[in-house]
């Protein structure tokens, strides 16, 4: 197909694809799935951190956390807009989230149990997210690539704030340090799982790479994350909960253990510690907000009607 070949050539030449241009249906579908899943992750991702806003330990920490959660809602907004350029509405995407058809990042199905978890999410979860997202700034689809530029800038800010929470705590009381170690113990493996199983296991990967929707293999990114994070854990005086973790001089990186992929698939299947709570929280926010959204529409219609009624007289 010459049209498809021309499309692939543009991508290979590093050109950006824009909303009104022709694209293969598979390209569009893959992007819609990926961008909406990413948007849903931002929205659901407000919940584990939101869980600690009312219990933040200082006014400044409370303000920082509020700003962070607000940023996440903002990222959700950019991403829904980017997906909308591909012909799917925000309400449709919400419907898919609420019905369970669309996924969001499994990491948000883990609970935040102490204040250290707020630090750990910034450090590890945002850290892993950035690792995934930085290459997406060069994604072949223009609106998605541009949204990612903005998002990545804020995420790295969030990651530093998370690390800062943990720095303060490990320098604090023994109880605080214990909380940080406990948080690392619980968040380490789920963070590694954020990169997904080895690419061999994924059918979509090769095509996504060719389309420059995806630029690196899951294992490449996971290795990079481990190599970046382990020295930070050491700096914090923490021990990484992986007995197989060891510096490998030859490859210039760490060897590390295999995550428990059965847990990963359990969580994806809906059996994570908080799947039901997260989805219910979003669904009830949506359902209980129906009257609010309906009223805004009704008011706008009334206002239009009133304007129209005044017209002839003017």
């Amino acid at each position: 197909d010459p049209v498809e070949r021309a499309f692939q050539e543009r991508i290979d030449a590093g050109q950006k694809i824009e909303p009104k241009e022709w694209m293969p249906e598979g390209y569009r579908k893959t992007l819609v799935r990926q961008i909406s899943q990413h948007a849903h992750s931002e929205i659901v991702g407000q919940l584990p951190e939101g869980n600690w806003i009312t219990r933040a330990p200082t006014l400044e920490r409370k303000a920082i956390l509020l700003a962070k959660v607000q940023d996440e809602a903002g990222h959700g907004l950019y991403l829904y807009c980017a997906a909308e350029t591909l012909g799917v509405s925000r309400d449709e995407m919400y419907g898919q989230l609420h019905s369970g058809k669309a996924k969001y990042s499994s990491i948000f199905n883990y609970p935040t149990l102490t204040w250290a978890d707020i630090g750990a999410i910034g450090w590890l979860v945002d850290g892993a997210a950035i690792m995934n997202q930085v290459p997406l700034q060069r994604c072949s689809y223009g609106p998605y690539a541009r949204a990612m530029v903005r998002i990545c800038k804020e995420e790295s800010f969030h990651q530093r704030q998370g690390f800062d929470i943990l720095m303060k705590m490990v320098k604090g009381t023994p109880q605080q340090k214990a909380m940080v170690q406990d948080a690392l113990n619980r968040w380490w493996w789920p963070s590694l799982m954020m990169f997904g199983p080895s690419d061999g296991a994924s059918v979509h990967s090769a095509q996504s790479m060719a389309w420059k929707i995806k630029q690196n293999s899951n294992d490449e990114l996971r290795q990079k994350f481990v190599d970046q994070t382990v020295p930070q854990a050491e700096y914090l005086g923490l021990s990484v909960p992986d007995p197989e973790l060891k510096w490998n001089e030859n490859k210039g990186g760490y060897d590390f253990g295999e995550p428990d992929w059965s847990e990963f698939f359990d969580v994806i299947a809906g059996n994570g510690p908080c799947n039901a709570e997260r989805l219910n929280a979003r669904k009830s926010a949506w359902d209980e907000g129906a009257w609010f959204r309906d009223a805004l529409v009704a008011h706008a219609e009334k206002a239009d009607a009133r304007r129209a009624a005044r017209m002839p007289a003017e």
Partner: protein
Amino acid sequence: MATATDTTVDKAVLTEFLTRVGDNALILGHRVSEWCGHGPALEEDIALANVALDLIGQTQLWLGLAAEIEGKGRSADDLAFLRDGFDFRNLLLVERPNGDIGQTLMRQFLFDAWHLQMLNALKGSTDRRIAEIAEKASKEVAYHLERSRDLVIRLGDGTDESHHRMQAALDGLWAYTGEMFVGDAGDAALAAAGVAPHPESLKAGWDEIVAEALAEATLKKPADGYMHKGGKRGVHSEHLGFILTEMQFLQRAYPGATW
């Protein structure tokens, strides 16, 4: 240009006043922050977080100044996280439960309309430090009011259901608005020194803003009946206790830890 006259008013009176202003921002900020991730629309989630954020920022300034003037070596955080319920000085209005989003927005509007009047008056305070904080805060609060007023109008004049919800919210909150305009001896002293407006002086402006918005919202302004009070002198509702158990838990559970 306003000049510092902090010596002309009793330190305790000034501290009490700043605590009242600061506690209003703190407790309302807390309440609004409870919405995080649970708003009825994404834009609303963002806006609510923004209001909460502004209010927590204002808390830092007001309670910071209160602590400084008090001169007992306490910080804004100490005031927020280590005081007992009866030492809080916020209006009862701001500790009312969120209810549905209509009730939250109505509470916000009734408070914002007063808050902006108050801050605008404080911009002319003879105490330069107060005037400076008011200058900054009033810009934020002008935006809060614009937003809450607009939504009260749209929801009041929306569907039948939204109209009823907004009227119920208004009727339920009305008896908590009177406390904003009741002054005591300290307020009189502050007014005399030009540090802060007399609470009663804000009533006419508030009435006007509220009456106009309610009319446009097709909502019926409740008759002025019994008005609850107590928050300004530390006698709160049962709700504040639960707010504080959550808000203060970490500071209480790990005394002296830094975060």
